[in-house]
């Protein structure tokens, strides 16, 4: 369940940042669904985009503390800390490469694959023969917007402007006892057609 939590944590900063229209004006709704069938547990959260925007507008420091993103380390007890600037430089070099495999890591029973396919950046993590799967689809425009800030800052506001246009699944995580799904549509309820 740690990977789903990490996926959520990584995605939430993307889901906020600028003033916008009232949620009653057909604005986007962000839906988060976490299910743990073994525990008989289901959590549904529905958030109007303006509410998320309001939160990050009022708490900008929470978006990227000190301009740093903390990666991994939860499992093996050590952090790999990369500057936002490092990610930006890497992204700028890769974004024009067209469809390509950007990152592929195999370590023990874990496989991490980041690739570009059309207008999407696909992040896939598989563990222990498919026991845990992380499935993240990010539009290239969204990543572009996120890295359009200066220095060590992620441009969350620009990313949010892209998110407002985004519809469909953003994150899907499945492991042996839980599933997490985050998607965006224009409905207040969380059925999401799935």
């Amino acid at each position, binding site marked *: 369940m740690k990977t789903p939590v990490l996926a959520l944590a990584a995605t939430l900063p993307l889901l906020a940042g600028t003033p916008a229209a009232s949620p009653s004006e057909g604005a986007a709704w962000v839906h988060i669904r976490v299910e743990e069938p073994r525990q*008989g547990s289901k959590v549904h959260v529905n958030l109007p985009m303006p509410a998320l925007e309001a939160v990050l507008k009022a708490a900008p420091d929470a978006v990227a503390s000190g301009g740093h993103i903390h990666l991994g380390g939860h499992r093996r007890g050590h952090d790999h800390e990369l500057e936002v600037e490092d990610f930006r430089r890497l992204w700028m070099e890769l974004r024009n490469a067209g469809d390509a495999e950007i990152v592929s890591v195999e370590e023990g029973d874990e496989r991490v694959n980041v690739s570009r396919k059309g207008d999407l950046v696909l992040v896939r993590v598989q563990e222990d023969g498919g026991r845990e799967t992380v499935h993240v689809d990010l539009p290239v425009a969204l990543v572009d917007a996120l890295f359009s800030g200066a220095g060590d800052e992620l441009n969350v506001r620009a990313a949010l402007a892209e998110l407002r246009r985004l519809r469909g699944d953003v994150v899907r995580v499945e492991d042996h006892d839980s599933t997490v799904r985050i998607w965006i549509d224009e409905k207040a309820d969380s059925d999401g057609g799935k």
Partner: protein
Amino acid sequence: MLLKIGAVLASIPITLGTVVAATGIMVVDVKDKDGTRIVIPVPLLVAQTAAGLAPAQAAADAVDRELARARPYLPAAEEFLAALADGPDFELVRVDEGDEHVRIDKVGDLLRVSVDSPRENVKVNVPFDLAREVLRRTREGRVSPADLVAAVRQARLTQLVDVRDGGEHVTITVW
């Protein structure tokens, strides 16, 4: 002369009643499983005055310490509530775990929290204005018991709490 005295005497409870009605009454209604029913009307003006006089410094210090870490995030919480309040009615959170269910809905001017389990049912209605007022006061400084009671006065004509536990039923309503 007697008529004047009678009029003056009669005006006292009428005036008091008018002041109490104008400033709000919190009614605590307790129904016990044995059929006993206790209704306690609490004039909010009196409660606010009493809360202001209460020696609550230690409690206020404890609350202030607890809020120290949360205080930077209070503006975000205020903005979040404001955005929710401006939106349509919707289900914000639903948690189902076995036979326990928690729901948080935005219904009109209220944030409605419902907790249902085989043993108890709890419904709490939090007016957005009340929540934002408490957050604002907390952000601007210490929030005292008197401040909380004053904020409750913004929740007129609202059933704040409805708890059913076994055969007991408790409601708290602000009139």
